[in-house]
């Protein structure tokens, strides 16, 4: 189909949270200016980047997103005075969490895009798509499945082992 | 018209020439070789004739350092074939070279009626321009040197050439083909070939390599000894106003008893 797929044919999907005042408007401006870019992102409009709950990001990843993009106003330009700073602070912390989960840094991105920067929408999205294409699909749901079966296996082992131990102890008791 | 050009590689005088330890030859470790300048004109003249009258141009050379570059260059300019006669010919002089070339022509039966053989009329190791005359003698065909213009008349199978003489004289000759001529200068200076074209030719074209059986051809004249040219006096720069310079000049000339 279209070229924004990875080599294996998986279609990259990026969930984008755009703030109403700057980045969502910029994405509209890109449209009005007919600035073409990769079609792999899906925008969810929020009033302010400060509304983006880290759980949204986790939720998106765990439901199959290959990347999450947050777009807010430039520092000092926030429609709500400082929501973007709050977002930034949260983002810095959360990036570490995401890294610990084994999700590559390029999959989560925060960008300041003002209402006039239609072209920046293109640059950011194309760049992010090409980087994620190189990484390939994340596909956490499938990973969950394999982790789950791993866990099951482990649990089974533990169970069996503890059975053994119990057996041994029983023997000790009975022999004792 | 079938044109055969015989070309020679000569020492490039950009480098300072050094005489080898045997005092008979040049120290070739020190020098580079280039196509003799008049041969370059011969190639240009041949291409001009081909462009005007059609036909086929074959360039033939004796093996020598950097000869491939010269042959590829000729191909890039429009020559149809390039032939390299392999062997060690470094000590060969004009009579020997003429013999080699002539034998090659005879062996290959190249001397058909519409054949014009060309070479540079001189080279720095062939200042008298005797090569073409030796070849003419060997092949028994008309020969003309120091040619600056060639025209072909197919109806009579002959060429019209201009030959330069000393004192600014010029003669026009009609020569029946086959014939051999020595080119002094092509009608136009040798053309420029973009290097990209030469590099492309190097990738696609082929130089034909042939061996000539050693029929005990002698190298020709033998060199007894090479000597460095003697350094003569240097020029003197006269400085000052025009009047001062004139006075100094008169003084010098009278000193040397010229006036």
């Amino acid at each position, binding site marked *: 189909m279209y070229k924004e797929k990875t080599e294996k044919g998986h279609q990259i999907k990026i969930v984008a949270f755009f703030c109403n005042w700057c980045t969502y408007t910029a994405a509209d401006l890109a449209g009005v200016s007919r600035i073409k870019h990769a079609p792999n992102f899906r925008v969810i409009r929020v009033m302010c980047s400060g509304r983006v709950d880290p759980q949204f990001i986790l939720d998106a990843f765990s439901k199959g997103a290959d990347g999450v993009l947050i777009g807010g106003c430039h520092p000092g330009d926030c429609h709500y005075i400082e929501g973007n700073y709050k977002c930034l602070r949260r983002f810095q912390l959360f990036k570490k969490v995401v890294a610990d989960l084994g999700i590559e840094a390029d999959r989560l991105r925060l960008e300041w895009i003002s209402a006039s920067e239609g072209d920046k929408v293109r640059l950011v999205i194309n760049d992010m798509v090409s980087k994620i294409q190189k990484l390939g699909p994340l596909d956490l749901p499938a990973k969950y499945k394999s982790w789950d079966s791993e866990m099951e296996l482990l649990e089974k082992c533990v169970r069996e082992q503890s059975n053994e131990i119990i057996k041994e102890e029983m023997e000790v008791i009975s022999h004792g | 018209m079938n044109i055969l050009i015989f070309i020679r590689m000569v020492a490039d005088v*950009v480098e300072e020439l050094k005489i080898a330890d045997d005092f008979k030859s040049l120290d070739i470790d020190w020098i580079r070789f*280039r196509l003799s300048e008049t041969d370059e004109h011969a190639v240009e003249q041949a291409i001009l004739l081909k462009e005007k009258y059609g036909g086929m141009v074959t360039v033939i050379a004796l093996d020598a350092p950097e000869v491939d570059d010269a042959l590829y260059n000729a191909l890039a300019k429009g020559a149809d074939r390039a032939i390299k006669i392999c062997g060690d010919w470094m000590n060969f002089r004009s009579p020997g070279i003429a013999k080699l070339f002539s034998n090659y022509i005879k062996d290959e039966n190249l001397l058909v009626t519409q054949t014009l053989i060309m070479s540079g009329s001189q080279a720095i190791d062939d200042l008298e321009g005797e090569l073409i005359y030796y070849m003419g003698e060997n092949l028994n065909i008309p020969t003309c040197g120091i040619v600056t213009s060639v025209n072909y008349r197919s109806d009579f199978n002959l060429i019209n050439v201009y030959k330069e003489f000393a004192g600014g004289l010029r003669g026009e000759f009609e020569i029946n083909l086959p014939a051999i001529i020595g080119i002094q200068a092509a009608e136009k*200076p040798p*053309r*420029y070939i*973009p*290097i*990209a074209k*030469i*590099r492309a030719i190097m990738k696609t074209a082929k130089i034909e390599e042939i061996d000539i059986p050693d029929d005990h051809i002698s190298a020709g004249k033998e060199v007894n000894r090479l000597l460095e040219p003697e350094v003569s006096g240097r020029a003197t720069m006269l400085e000052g106003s025009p009047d001062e310079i004139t006075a100094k000049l008169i003084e010098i000339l009278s000193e040397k008893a010229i006036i």
Partner: protein
Amino acid sequence: MIVDIESLRGLSMDTLYDSPEGRLIQSCIQCGTCAGTCPHGEYMAYPPRRIIKMMQHGLIDKVYASDSMLKCVNCYACMSKCPREIHLTEVLLQLVKEQTIIRLPSVPPELQKALENSYRYGNPMGESGRKRINWMKDLDFPIRILSQNPDPVDVLWFVESYPSYHPRGQDTARAIAKIMHRLEIDFAILGNEERSAGECGLLAWESGLAESLVDYNMAILTKYKFNRVMTSDPHALDAFNYRYKMYGFNLNATHNIPFIYEYFDKIKKMFTRSLHYSVTYHDSCCLGRHNGYYDQPRQILKAIPGIKLIEMVHNRENALCCGGGGGGMWLDTYYKSQNMERLSDIRVKEAIETGADILAVACPYEIPRFEDALKLAGYDKKMMVKDISELIVDSMGG
């Protein structure tokens, strides 16, 4: 000024319109600034503006068949003023030049010789490669040559052909050597292994020649280890920073003037002699317009005790070209045959107008060009042409 050097490799007139550069060219508004600012615009049948229009109308073959591009001296004036930021000098004009030279019925002999010499001998004057280091003879300290001692070195000095061979260029080379020596910089040269980097004009004319020189020099450069590259020819600076990059050269080269400027504080203290000259400085096109080095040469000149700096009418980004670039160095005879005034003559008139004692330069082409022009103007006794490096050495007491 170039955005994406990589994408330029392999760009030809056929593929131009599909590239971002091509789209930029399509945006031309035909204002004529390029033609108006071109030092030879009035002599061109097709100045840059018309070239673009002819291209848009598919009539570019007519441009190739004309000799307009022979008159382009690669001075970057049109490119620096273009309101659409079209990369005229860097992209379009050189592609047209390439096609022109393929079709020219005959290349002016001087240029042909320079091109052939560059290919065969690695320098446009056709000198023996072995004489490349002759300029060093009179120096009283040794200069390391990498082929003799291939140990890693801090600065590789790419001397280039004019400073290596031309008598006045050699003066510059020796001056630079002295400065480097005094600054105690760990430097070395390639010596006889060096070949012309491919002067910007030659590169523009002849992609084949350019590639052969790039191939050769890249093979030599990769043999050695060095941290920085400095060259004494602004054209080589352009070659390295814009052309060689396309072939994988990944160091930023610098020119001896901005290089010396990096040691400004140190060198200022070495200026012991007062020179008592009024000096006017000619911005070389490559150094100035193309690389933006306007202040460094001026700062150095102003720091030399006794020197008074006067500007010509056209200075900095508006400086007039000496006419040597883009092959112009070997086209003077041709230009004369076309009744064109030599650009160096025009430039020297502006210099004379300032009443300066010295015309300072930083490009090795300019010394012979301006000395010639001054002689022609009958002004050679009143004004000297000097490389800034020479003035530095003068002020350091030799």
